[in-house]
């Protein structure tokens, strides 16, 4: 299938989804399910009146630090455990075990430790995002081809040069995949935290709108969440293509795994 036909089909599928949404809204009535146009109007109104801006900025102000901390902590522990074969093996099943746990069950503990404000969302989001980076960084470092380091040694590169010219280029492709997964999970963690207990942000707006049966706002928030999630993911996908000859099937496998 050529690229043009592919793009055409994808465009058609987006149009189809929007049309289906509009159709359901028409059948069920817009009071029950506001359609795409009405939702767009509410979003526009939300931005011009400010409440949607405020909620989006609150959520981003929690997601960004959470993501930054998750990336730093995950990279650090990934590097430490990736460089030591023994400690890597000791900790790997423990980390994977914690990763598979339904983290939402632990959220009350985050609330008790960090209180209801932004800190608990940042910590909870970070807790969601730290694992993929750690796991991917550890395996990338542990599986780096020894021949790279041999070349660096035989060229008499300094440790700093080895890091910049050999280690980093070898790791960056996997790290970008890790960062992409980590962002999604951090974002999801923050929003879930906001829905359950908070005083602001998109998750808070969603649960408040649900409690007042304001479906128009519910739909508006869902669209913003989707745009943010998909938008950042596309950004990382572009980054992946630029930095990396990672094959398509490998990228899919990491997403699914």
């Amino acid at each position, binding site marked *: *299938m050529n690229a043009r036909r*592919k793009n055409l*089909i*994808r465009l*058609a*599928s987006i149009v*189809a989804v929007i049309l289906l949404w509009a159709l359901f809204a028409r059948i069920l009535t817009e009071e*029950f*399910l506001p359609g795409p146009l009405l939702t767009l109007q509410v979003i526009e109104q939300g931005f011009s009146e400010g409440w949607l801006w405020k909620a989006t900025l609150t959520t981003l102000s929690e997601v960004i630090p959470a993501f930054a901390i998750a990336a730093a902590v995950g990279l650090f522990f990934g590097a430490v455990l990736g460089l030591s074969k*023994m400690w890597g*093996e*000791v*900790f790997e*099943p*423990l980390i*994977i*075990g914690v990763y*598979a*746990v*339904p*983290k*939402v*069950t*632990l*959220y*009350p*503990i985050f*609330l*008790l*430790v960090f209180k209801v404000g932004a800190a608990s969302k940042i910590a909870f989001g970070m807790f969601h995002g730290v694992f993929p980076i750690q796991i991917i960084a550890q395996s990338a470092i542990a599986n780096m081809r020894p021949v790279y380091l041999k070349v660096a040694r035989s060229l008499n590169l300094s440790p700093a040069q080895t890091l910049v010219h050999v280690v980093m280029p070898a790791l960056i492709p996997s790290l970008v995949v890790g960062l992409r997964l980590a962002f*999604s999970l951090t*974002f*999801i963690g923050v*929003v*879930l935290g906001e*829905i*359950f207990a908070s005083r602001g942000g998109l*998750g808070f707006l*969603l*649960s408040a*709108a*649900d409690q007042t049966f304001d*479906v128009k706002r*519910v*739909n508006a*928030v*869902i669209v913003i*969440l*989707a745009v943010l*999630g*998909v938008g*950042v*993911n596309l950004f990382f996908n572009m980054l992946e293509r630029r930095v990396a000859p990672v094959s398509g*099937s490998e990228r*899919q*496998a990491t*997403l*699914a*795994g």
Partner: protein
Amino acid sequence: MSRILLLRIAIVAIAIAIWEGLARAHAFGPTLSVPPTVMFATMIAALLDGRLLPDVGRTAAEIALAYGIALLIGLPLGVILWRSRVLATAIEPYLLAYYVIPLFAFYPLFIKIFGAGIAPIVAIGVINGIGAITMNVLVGLREIPRVQLALARSLMLRPAQTLVHVVIPATVPQAFVGLRLGFIYSLIGVIAAEFILATAGVGYRIAFAYNNFESKIMFATILLVLIVSIACNQVLISIERRLALYRRA
């Protein structure tokens, strides 16, 4: 190998011992200072006197239902997308973007559509599970070596024979990854949904205990969920490893 296992056990034991000591010294304040031994004892007691059983039963039923429906939708969808390149091209971007959207944000719509009760909770479990199942089944089917399908044709195997002798053995290891993740994601979706909108179930029980400052039962229930989900995952991972070995052999 055994040294590694010993170290692993030692680390967990030391971490629990430190936690126990700090909690007994009330280092975390009144609500958080529940020692692990007390959590465990409370969990056993609550299971034995039946206090937790209705919630556990309800959550288990919701997860089973959600996972069952996710399989019923996700497996055939994977096969259909493998057979139809046009559909695959149209739907694959959605699958790749599936888990980047907080799916439980749809809960207000599910309440509207399905009403109160367990249906919207199961629905969140279902949509959380489908993506991983479909994606991995599709990847598994695509990885069937062409030469095996060609061989099946030249041996004039009937479709059913091709399915049993070629397609299933070649696909199962990768598809099982999807079955495992689908189960875990359904479980996470159900419990997250219970936190937000249920009136029973372990997620609700934890949220209720949190809101009423009953830290002992809260920690006991959290511990129960953690033990059960880690155990499920370990069992599934060991099956997955065996399947992967079988593929290589």
